[in-house]
């Protein structure tokens, strides 16, 4: 019995060392293979979650429905008004874009994707989407929504991909503040207790006079995120010993968004 125990310990030790010494590329591929293996489960789970959400949403009381109806009527009127205004604005923007030649520069080829699962690991923020190498997705591609930056692809399998969210501490994006010359690096926080996670911009100048509500945009350096994408808005600015630091409210509702776009290239 003692011999078996020693042999087991030896084999275990060797296996652990071998795993630790595996190249990161192999580990990355292993993760991709494992996620590919559980793709059917992820898809089924996502549809069950959606069904459950639908049932829960359908169970509303009459007075709630009435209130909702009133609100929707009001919203509808507002939207009609803003829609006609936006149509005018859109044609003007298009005209200006054509004139300035910026249209080609800012147009991306977007691949729509649906979120399959949202990881609830304690120290990491990521999710899986239903697009993979089969659809032209590759690692380090930016993932956005109509509101702004969502994250970037870290692992990709044939049918699914893992997206590291902008709220994760390990994802760093170079940003600029709209209307200023300020540039910094935005990243998530390791643990945020809020429903809306805080982001943090570091390496700002100490004299930066940032006001709450100022827009934070991607700077475009780094090669992953194209410039000009909305990251969020300034919540607070404070000065540390060596740098200015700002907290940012993300533009995208990371907890509830269901559909995202992968930036697969430029048009």
């Amino acid at each position, binding site marked *: 019995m003692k011999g078996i125990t020693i042999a087991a310990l030896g084999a275990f030790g060797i296996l652990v060392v071998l795993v630790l010494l595996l190249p990161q590329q192999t580990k990355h591929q292993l993760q991709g293979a494992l996620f590919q293996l559980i793709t059917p489960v992820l898809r089924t789970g996502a549809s069950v979650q959606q069904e459950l959400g639908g049932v829960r949403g359908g169970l509303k009381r009459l007075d709630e429905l009435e209130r909702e109806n009133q609100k929707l009527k009001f919203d509808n009127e507002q939207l009609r008004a803003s829609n006609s205004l936006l149509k005018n604005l859109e044609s003007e923007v298009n005209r200006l874009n054509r004139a300035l030649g910026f249209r080609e520069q800012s147009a991306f080829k977007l691949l729509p994707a649906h979120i399959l699962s949202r990881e609830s690991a*304690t120290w990491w923020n990521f999710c899986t989407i239903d697009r993979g190498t089969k659809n032209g997705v590759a690692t380090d591609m930016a993932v956005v929504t109509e509101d702004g930056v969502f994250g970037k692809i870290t692992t990709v399998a044939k049918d699914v991909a893992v997206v590291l969210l902008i709220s994760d501490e390990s994802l760093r994006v170079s940003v600029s503040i709209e209307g200023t010359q300020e540039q910094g690096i935005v990243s998530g926080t390791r643990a945020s207790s809020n429903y809306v996670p805080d982001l943090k911009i570091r390496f700002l100048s100490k004299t930066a006079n940032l006001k709450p509500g100022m827009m934070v945009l991607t700077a475009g350096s780094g090669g992953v995120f194209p410039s000009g994408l909305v990251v969020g808005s300034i919540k607070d600015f404070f000065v540390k010993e060596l740098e200015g630091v700002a907290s940012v409210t993300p533009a995208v509702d990371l907890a509830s968004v269901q559909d995202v776009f992968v930036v697969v290239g430029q048009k």
Partner: protein
Amino acid sequence: MILFFLALLALIFGSFVFQLFLPPILLLHGTAILFVPAVYFYGCLCLPFPLTLALTFFTGMFNDLLMIPQPRSHSDFPTGISILIYLAPGLVMHGLRPLFLRHRWETHCLLAETGAILSPFILLAQYAMLSFERREIFFSDVIVWRIVGPGLISLLIAPCVFFILTPLSHALGYRPGLPFAR
């Protein structure tokens, strides 16, 4: 025995996948609900030493591959570290195996709660590892909640998991410390 070991492996893998769909509890500062430690600790109590090591290896690997993003270039939490993180509390639980083999329900309950108390160790070790890699350590009430919270939830989950797994092991013909069923 091997059949039950394979069933435990499948259960641990299934629990990891199930956890992917469980949202964190925002009222408890984003505390996660963890099923895996309870299943793993049951395995450590139930299985002989070599199979406990094998279970530790697979649990750690599944944890790192399913719960932690592994970028292509560099990861601040390399795959395989969790094997060592799970090993320490796993060995503590395995040391309590003689108590488990008495097969008294109150002892099983006590052991399940011991496992639940050990669960935060896994999160604390992950946090320590991350802080070391990212060269920044800080503590806040949120971090304390995220470490301790899953342990508190496990205090409720673990006894249920233990009382489900015991009949399963018997059904699969594995009755450690008990005479064979006719």
